[in-house]
């Protein structure tokens, strides 16, 4: 009998190992270790697994699956909502397929991990430039988890003793309704243990920007403290927030600087910072968002790339790994993880976070991507996103079937309402589920048309992966689906 192809030991080798240990067989081996814990018998797994298969048979299974889902080449993707359909240059796949990048562990031994550490250092540098922030870490899991950890960091910053988990049941964190609802849910999951209240701030019904008067009122009315205010840029509905005005209100809310809330800015689309001013220009204390747009595929939603950045005075409260530049014994440049005393493997229960494994490889992909884009390409591609989204929205509004949900400026994503149709007999969609039905019908025509925001509103995005002909196809099919 042959060995299985991933096991270098032959059957003879395995027999040799048993002889060396003075053990007869597998049964005896596990019996000696486990005592009376039963072993899985050969028949036990027959309900869940077939016999093993060769590579060719395995490939057929998965290439059949790939053939049975929407084809990348035929389908135009206009859905965003936290993950965007950007182009990925083949250089990235080629470089990342080098085993030296994808098969090591976390760089605990810096002398044999300089490649990953150097690439992560460049990642941190590039992201810091894009965000206008001081310190960027070497990645979190995804934007939502990163944002939740940012709120936890703000809670620590608001506590007298930052090392001891405080009770925050008198405190409230204000989260704009413009924050992605999934991010909002993840914040709730992570802050559950602290007692802090999470309160929403409404959007202005016309512009779609966070309602400044409500924020002001809430900041002056509350009895407890406000460790943080969270704003997303551009927000979930695609609208560009006025960070300048928000920052002034947040940072001047209280005379007492100790009680000044942390201004946390999130983003699911930092590509926007190729065109609009980044959070660092407006005094954001912490940035926490998604970096998947930089050189990573959508991968059905994961893995993603959590970005975390802060002002340098808050570095000791940052979660996750940070790469620093240093020297070796011969005064050559070298890189290593720094400030590890924040982390779980040293601080255990008193760590700033429990995170260990992160999204390192996705971060290296982003570093490669941003290198390729370079200064000019990053701006040019961001500008294309801006144009395509505006052209698409203009064309859809021209049909008379839609109206804007909000009027505020936007980058590459926007929200539309279905216009109330007075001519009932002309209406092709069920009133109760217009948006979801519209999306389903468009999908049957090879258009992933957007995300349902409610029964009568959709969220639509356009990236540089979209062509004018896709926009024309979208408009033509939308007319047919809605009007007949």
């Amino acid at each position, binding site marked *: 009998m042959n060995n299985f192809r991933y096991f270098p030991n032959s059957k003879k080798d395995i027999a040799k190992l048993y002889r060396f240990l003075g053990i007869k067989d597998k049964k005896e081996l596990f019996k000696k270790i486990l005592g009376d814990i039963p072993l899985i018998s050969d028949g036990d797994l027959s309900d869940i*697994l077939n016999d*093993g298969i060769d590579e060719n048979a395995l490939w057929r299974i998965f290439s059949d699956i790939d053939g049975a889902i*929407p084809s990348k080449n035929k389908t135009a993707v206009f859905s965003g909502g936290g993950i965007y359909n950007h182009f990925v240059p083949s250089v990235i796949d080629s470089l990342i397929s080098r*085993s030296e990048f994808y098969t090591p562990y976390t760089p605990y031994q810096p002398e044999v*991990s300089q490649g990953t550490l150097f690439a992560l250092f460049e990642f941190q540098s590039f992201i810091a430039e894009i965000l206008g922030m001081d310190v960027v870490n070497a990645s979190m899991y995804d934007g939502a988890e990163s944002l939740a950890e940012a709120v936890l960091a703000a809670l620590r910053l608001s506590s007298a003793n930052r090392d001891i988990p405080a009770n925050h049941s008198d405190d409230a964190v204000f989260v704009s309704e413009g924050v992605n609802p999934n991010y909002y849910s993840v914040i709730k999951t992570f802050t559950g243990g602290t007692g802090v209240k999470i309160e929403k701030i409404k959007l202005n019904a016309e512009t779609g920007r966070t309602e400044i008067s409500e924020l002001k009122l809430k900041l002056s009315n509350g009895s407890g403290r406000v460790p943080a205010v969270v704003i997303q840029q551009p927000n979930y509905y695609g609208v560009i927030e006025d960070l300048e005005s928000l920052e002034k209100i947040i940072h001047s809310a209280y005379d007492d600087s100790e009680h000044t809330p942390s201004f946390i800015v999130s983003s699911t689309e930092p590509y926007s910072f190729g*065109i609009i001013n980044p959070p660092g220009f407006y005094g954001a204390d912490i940035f926490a968002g998604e970096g998947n747009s930089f050189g990573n595929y959508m991968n059905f939603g994961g893995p993603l790339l959590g970005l975390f950045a802060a002002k340098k005075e808050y570095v000791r409260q940052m979660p996750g790994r940070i790469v620093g530049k240093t020297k070796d014994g011969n005064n050559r440049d070298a890189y290593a993880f720094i400030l590890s005393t924040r982390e779980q493997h040293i601080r255990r229960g008193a760590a700033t976070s429990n995170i260990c494994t992160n999204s390192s490889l996705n971060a290296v992909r982003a570093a490669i991507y941003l290198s390729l884009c370079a200064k000019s390409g990053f701006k040019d591609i961001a500008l294309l996103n801006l144009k395509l989204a505006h052209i698409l929205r203009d064309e859809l509004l021209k049909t008379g079937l839609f109206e804007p949900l909000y009027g505020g400026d936007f980058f590459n994503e926007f929200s539309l309402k279905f216009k109330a149709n007075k001519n009932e007999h002309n209406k092709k969609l069920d009133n109760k589920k217009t948006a979801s039905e519209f999306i389903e019908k468009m999908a049957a025509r090879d258009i992933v048309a957007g995300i349902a925001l409610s029964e009568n509103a959709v969220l639509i995005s356009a990236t*540089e992966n979209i062509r004018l002909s896709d926009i024309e196809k979208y408009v033509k099919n939308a007319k047919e689906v809605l009007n007949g």
Partner: protein
Amino acid sequence: MAKFPGIKGIFFDEDPLIEQSSKGVNGIGIPDCGLKKSDLRKDESAYIDSKYIRKNPPGLPEVSEPTVVRHFTRLSGWNMCVDTVFYPLGSCTMKYNPKINEKIASLENIKNLHPLTPANLIQPVLKIVYDFNNILCGLTGLAEFSFAPQAGAAGEFAGLKVIKKYFELKGENRKTILVPDSSHGTNPASSVLAGFTPVEIKTGKAGTLNAEELKKFISKDVAGIMITNPNTFGVFEKDIKKIAEIMHKNGSFVYMDGANFNAFLGNVKVSDMGIDLIQLNLHKTFSTPHGGGGPGSGALGIVESLREFLPIPYVKKTAADKNNGKNTSNYDKDFNAENQVYELSEDRKNSIGKMTPFLCNFAVLIRAYAYLLSLGRDNVGSVSEIAVLNANYVKKKLDEILSGSDPFEEGLCMHECVFSDKAIEEGGISTIELAKLLIDYGFHPPTVYFPKNIHGAIMIEPTETESIRTLDNFIKAVKEIKLKTKKSRAAKSPQKTKVGRVNEVLANKRPVFKS
């Protein structure tokens, strides 16, 4: 006898890309997307208010495609990895990452799939998640898995939140999670994050937990215990069933840190040890590459009584029988309705909530699923069998060299073995020096100085994807280091790497975060 791999490769020096910039150069083609000339000419001020517009673009490097390719290719040469060296990093299960799984995860339509594509178009993808869940249930004896946790620590956090929610619903406010002092640092960190107070229990000589010792800590405040099995010494917790019994009698849960599940895969169901929750690190036991630090996946499995608390969303199987209404039965063996459809559901009223914006780290999951299909039921049990044999071979062989250093000398270890620095210290070499010396022989060092409660710990996990020949070679290197190395050379090692010993004190004293 096999040669030492050593390091005789070719290293290139390389400047940061920002220093290689030349004004106006980039490495990406800018498409026109079919836009009209008039639109192409417009700038951003035609679309948005000028007060938002960024005046100076971010200072990214200005380099071409070949420059980028050479840069990162050179950098890659400075890494050791599983494909180039034996990588016996304890507790990390650095096994071979099958190449076909990379190819599968890179299938064009799968990797470009938007997570909110209508479910009726992506049935086979949802089925993968569902079927993989079933397989993990079969391998562990548990009721259901959630793939929301993005890595091991996230799995721990999710599991503890589940326990928290369970007690909240019962109207009990239990605050304590027991954690053996030999546990991974993530265990107490996750406990705090979930709103518990971790209480450390002293463990015995081989890091094992004694049932009698545990009893001293039992009270109605104890919500559960986090136990690593085999523990961080690679030793099976032989009291596990007694421990589970004590916990269950107290109405508390047993959470198993599944980082070391490679010791059991295909041979032992954790349900037979009384485990209630476990996270499985797909990037360890299930062969998905670790990516130089991530991404991973920390699938959380639970017993039946905790199902309602799992994160949302999840993949649900439904019988699309319109006459009888929807008949749902997730992960039931005998569920066999016709016209089954899979859907993403948020219908779980006591869920702990969301952990991630979408469903899961799908690209990790699909590799792990392909791995299990390749192995099949006839080979899956060989994984832990050979992993345990290899570890015991190293343990017994090294015991001859490092005599007196094995805290568990008499017994069999599971998938990894641990030594103290006793024997090498006698020869004047410290654990960190042994680690750095091994590098020059062409081996990645083992995990060092963990677990903390063993002096100068050296933790070796060979995995099942290494041959006896490789193990012998590694053992021979340890022997040579112990017998022949001079103290002066030890302090200066490694010498054959891109950089020598990195000054971590300086790195922390005057931190430089970016270029």
